[in-house]
C-alpha cells in the first residue's frame, strides 16, 4: 500500500512539474503578440533637411508662421539644450542618439487650408480609420472629439464647432499660436520650463505640433477630448507639445493614443505635456501608449522620452493621470503633479507592460507645496521576456504642506525568469504634519490560480488574461469607458498568442 501510494504521489508530482513547465512556456508564448499597427502609409510628405541648428529652428518657426515670442522661446531653449548633457541616471542602455541625423519637421502634403474633413487626404483618413480613430463624419457618433497628429503636424480636429458653442477651444497648437497667441504666451513653458531637462529643452526648441485645449470658467467639457499621435516617417522624430488650461470650476477629460510603423531604426519621440488647473478645476489625462516596441531581438522601436507635468494652481483643483504603457522600445516618462493650491489633489494610475527587450522607467512625481494637498499613486508593472520594468517615483512634502497626505502602491508582476522588475521610490518630507505611505509588492501568475481557473473550464489563455486584467483593475477603473475597454483589449492582445 505504502509503496503504491508513494508511486502515485510521485507520478502526480511529475505531472504537476510537467504542467508547471508547460504553463511557464505557455505564459511565455502567450505574451508574444505581433504589432498590429506597424504599417506605413504611402503618402507624399514635405520634409526638411536632417540636422539641428539655429537655422533649422528658424525654418520650422517660419514654416509655421510663428510670432516672434515663440521663435525667441525656441532659440533660448536651443541655447540651453546645447549646454546640457543627455541624462544617464536612469541606467537605460541604448545606443547614443545622433541628434544631427533626425528630421525635425515632416508633414503630409495637402491643401493649404482645410474647411471640412472631406478635404483631408483620403489616404490619411484611411490610415486613421485603420487605427480605429473616428475622424470621418459617420464615426463622429462616438461623441469623442479628436485631434489627429500625423508626424509633425495636426491634420484634423473634429467637433470644433460644437465645442466652440460651449466656449471650449480645442485645436492644434499651431492654430492656437495664430488665433490665441496671448494664452500661449501666458502659459507655454510655465509648467515645464525649457531648462527643465534635456528632452524638454529639445522639445521646446523644435516642437512641431500638438494639441491645445482651453476650458473657460465654469464649463464642464461636453465630450471627451482626444488626440491621436501617429509617427509615419522612419527618419523623423516626433516632438509634439500639448497645453491644457482649465479655468476656475471647469473640468475636462482628455485621452491620448499613439502608434507607429515598424522600422529597423529607432525613432525619437520627445513630447512635452503641460496641464494647468485653476480653482476647483479638474483635468483627467489618460494615455494608451502603443508605440512600436521593436522586434524580439530589440531592433527598432520608439524611444519615448516624454515630460508630462500638471500644475494644480488653484484651490481644490485636481489633476489625474492615468496611463497604459504597452509600447516603445524605451519609455522614460514621469507624469507629475505640482500641488500648489490648498486642498488640491494629484492622482497617478499606471499600468506598464514590457516584453522582449523593452525597457520602461516610469513613475510619477507628486510635489506637495500647498497645505492639505492629497495625492494617490497606483502603479502596476508587468514584465515579461527579457524586459526591464522600473517604477521610479518621488513624493515630496514641502515645509508649507501641512495636513497633506500621500498614498502610493506599486505592484509588479513577473512573467518568466528573465524579466526584471524594479521599484525606486524617493520619499522626502519636511513637514511633520503630513503623512506619506508607500507600499510595494512583487508577484507572479500563480500556478494554483491558473489551475483553478482551468479546472472551471476557462481556457489557459483567457485565464492568464483574466488574471492580468484583475491585477490591473485598480487602474482600469480609473480610465474613461472607451479607454478602459481599449486598454483591456490591448493587454489581452499582447497576451494573446499561440494558445487555444
Amino acid at each position, binding site marked *: 500500500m505504502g509503496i503504491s501510494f508513494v508511486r502515485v504521489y510521485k507520478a502526480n508530482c511529475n505531472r504537476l512539474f510537467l504542467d508547471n513547465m508547460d504553463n511557464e512556456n505557455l505564459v511565455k508564448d502567450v505574451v508574444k503578440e505581433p504589432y498590429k499597427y506597424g504599417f506605413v502609409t504611402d503618402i507624399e510628405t514635405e520634409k526638411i533637411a536632417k540636422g539641428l541648428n539655429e537655422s533649422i529652428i528658424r525654418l520650422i518657426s517660419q514654416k509655421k508662421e510663428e510670432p516672434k515670442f515663440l521663435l525667441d522661446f525656441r532659440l533660448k531653449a536651443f541655447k540651453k539644450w546645447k549646454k546640457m548633457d543627455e541624462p544617464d541616471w536612469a541606467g537605460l542602455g541604448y545606443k547614443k542618439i545622433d541628434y544631427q541625423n533626425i528630421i525635425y519637421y515632416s508633414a503630409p502634403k495637402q491643401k493649404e487650408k482645410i474647411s471640412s474633413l472631406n478635404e483631408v487626404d483620403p489616404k490619411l483618413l484611411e490610415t486613421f480609420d485603420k487605427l480605429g480613430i473616428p475622424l470621418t463624419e459617420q464615426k463622429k457618433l462616438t461623441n469623442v472629439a479628436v485631434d489627429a497628429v500625423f508626424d509633425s503636424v495636426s491634420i484634423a480636429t473634429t467637433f470644433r464647432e460644437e465645442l466652440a458653442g460651449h466656449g471650449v477651444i480645442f485645436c492644434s497648437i499651431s492654430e492656437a499660436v495664430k488665433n490665441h497667441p496671448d494664452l500661449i504666451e501666458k502659459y507655454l513653458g510655465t509648467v515645464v520650463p525649457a531648462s527643465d531637462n534635456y528632452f524638454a529643452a529639445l522639445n521646446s526648441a523644435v516642437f512641431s505640433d500638438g494639441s491645445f485645449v482651453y476650458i473657460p470658467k465654469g464649463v464642464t467639457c461636453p465630450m471627451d477630448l482626444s488626440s491621436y499621435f501617429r509617427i509615419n516617417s522612419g527618419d523623423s522624430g516626433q516632438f509634439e507639445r500639448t497645453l491644457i488650461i482649465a479655468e476656475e470650476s471647469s473640468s475636462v477629460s482628455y485621452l491620448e493614443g499613439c502608434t507607429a510603423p515598424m522600422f529597423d531604426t529607432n525613432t525619437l519621440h520627445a513630447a512635452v505635456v503641460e496641464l494647468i488647473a485653476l480653482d476647483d478645476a479638474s483635468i483627467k489625462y489618460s494615455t494608451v501608449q502603443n508605440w512600436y516596441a521593436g522586434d524580439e531581438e530589440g531592433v527598432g522601436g520608439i524611444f519615448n522620452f516624454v515630460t508630462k507635468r500638471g500644475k494644480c494652481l488653484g484651490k481644490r483643483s485636481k489633476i489625474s493621470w492615468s496611463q497604459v504603457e504597452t509600447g516603445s522600445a524605451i519609455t522614460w516618462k514621469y507624469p507629475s503633479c505640482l500641488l500648489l493650491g490648498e486642498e488640491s489633489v494629484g492622482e497617478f494610475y499606471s499600468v506598464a507592460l514590457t516584453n522582449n527587450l523593452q525597457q520602461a522607467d516610469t513613475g510619477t512625481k507628486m510635489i506637495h507645496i500647498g497645505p492639505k494637498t492629497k495625492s494617490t499613486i497606483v502603479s502596476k508593472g508587468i514584465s515579461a521576456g527579457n524586459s526591464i520594468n522600473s517604477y521610479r517615483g518621488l513624493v515630496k*512634502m514641502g*515645509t508649507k504642506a501641512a495636513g497633506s497626505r500621500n498614498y502610493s502602491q506599486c505592484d*509588479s508582476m*513577473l*512573467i*518568466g*525568469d*528573465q*524579466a*526584471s*522588475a*524594479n*521599484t*525606486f*521610490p*524617493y*520619499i*522626502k*518630507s*519636511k*513637514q*511633520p*504634519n*503630513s*503623512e*506619506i*505611505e*508607500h*507600499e*510595494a*509588492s*512583487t*508577484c*507572479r501568475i500563480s500556478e494554483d490560480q491558473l489551475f483553478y481557473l482551468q479546472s472551471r473550464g476557462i481556457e489557459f489563455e483567457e485565464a492568464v488574461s483574466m488574471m492580468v486584467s484583475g491585477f490591473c483593475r485598480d487602474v482600469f477603473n480609473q480610465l474613461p469607458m472607451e479607454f478602459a475597454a481599449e486598454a483591456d483589449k490591448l493587454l489581452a492582445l499582447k497576451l494573446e498568442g499561440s494558445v487555444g
Partner: protein
Amino acid sequence: MNIIEKIKTNKLIDDQTEIQKICLHKLQSSPLPNPKSELWRLSNKSKFSNFLDYSINEKDSKFDMPYPKNSHSTIRLIIGENFKIKLTEKNYSIEQLSEDELNKYIKEQISCFDQNENWSDLLNLSLSCAKNILGLKINGSKIPPIEIFSHASSNSLNAKTLVIFLEKNCEIKLLQVNLGKENSSLSQSTFFCLEENSSLNHGVVSYGENRSNLLNSLNVIQQKNSEYNLGSLHFKFNYARFEISIKQSVGNAKTNIKGMQITKSDEQISTYTKIDFNGPNGFLDQINKSLADDKSHAIFEGSIIVPKSAQKTDASQLSRNLLLSNLAQIDTKPQLEIIADDVKCKHGATISQLNEEELFYMRTRGITLAEASKLQLSSYFQEIISFIPVSKDRWDLLDTVLNQN
C-alpha cells in the same frame, strides 16, 4: 579636508602596511566619493568635510569604560588595546586571526570593492594601523556574550577595523559599541564571515557627544543555513553614516535587521543598506525606523537585489519615520531590484508624526502631553531596542534614548 590632501600627496602615514598601501593607492586615483551618486548625494557636504578635517590619531587616549563597568560572564574587548586573545574552553574557542589570515581575507575583500560603494571601507583600511585591526576566529557554542568597543579621541580621527570569522555551527551574541568624543571622527569598518549553520545575534550601538562624527561600515557574508540578526541604534552624532552590505552568497540563509536612528539639533544620520541574494530560498525581514527633530536630517536608503538565481526569496523591508519638527527633514528610499520570478518581495515606507488620537486619549486619562509623547516614543523605540542583544540586561538604552529626547 585635511586627510584628503595628505592622501593625494601620500604624506598621510609613514610606515605603511601592505593593506594600507593598496587602499591608499586606490584612493589616490579618486580620493572622494562621487557626490552625485545615490549613496552620497544627500550627504551634507560641510559635515562630511568636517569629518575629514581632523588629523589621524593612532595612539588611543585614556578610555573611560562606559556603564556598566563590571563584566561578569561577558567578554569585553577594546579595539586598539594591544593584547593577544586566545580563549579555549570546553565548548568554544576564540582566537586572534594570524596576520597572514587577516591580510589574505582583507585583500580578497578589497579586490571586490567598488570605489564609490566601498569608499568608507577604503578610507578605513587606509587609516587603520595594524594595532587597530582586530581579527577573531570564533568556534563552538554556549559562548558568553561578547562586547567590542571602538572609540574616538577628541580633536582627532580614529580608524578601527573588526574582522570576525564564525566557524560552522557556531552561535554567538555580539554587541558592538561605537563611542564618539567631542569634536572627533571615528571610522569603523566591520567584516563578518558566517560559515554554514552559524548564527550571529549582532547589536550595534553608536552614540557620540557634541560634534562627533561617525562613518560606520558593516560587511556580512552569509553561507548557507546561517542566520544573521542585526539590531542597531545610532544617535547623538553631528554626522553619521551607517552602511550595511549583506550578501547571502549561496542563498538558503536568514537575515533579520531592525535598525533605528535618532537625530536632533542639526545632526545628520543616514543608513544605507544593500542586501544581495545570490542564491535561492533567501529570507530577509528588515525594519528601519528614523526619528528627526529640531533642524536635523535622517536618511534611509535600502536596496534589495534579487537576481535570477535567487528563486523563492522572501524579502520584506519597511521604513518607518517620525518627523517631529517643522525644520527637520526625512528622506527615505526603499528599493527593489528583482529578476527572479518566483519570489515574495515587498516594501513599505511611512512618514508621519506622533498619533494625535492616541495622545488625546492618554491626556483624557490624566497623562500630561509630555508623558504621553514619551510613552508613544518608548513603544516606537522598544521594538528595535529589545532586538539588540546583550544590551537588554546590561544597558539602559531605552532610558538613555528617551531622556536625550
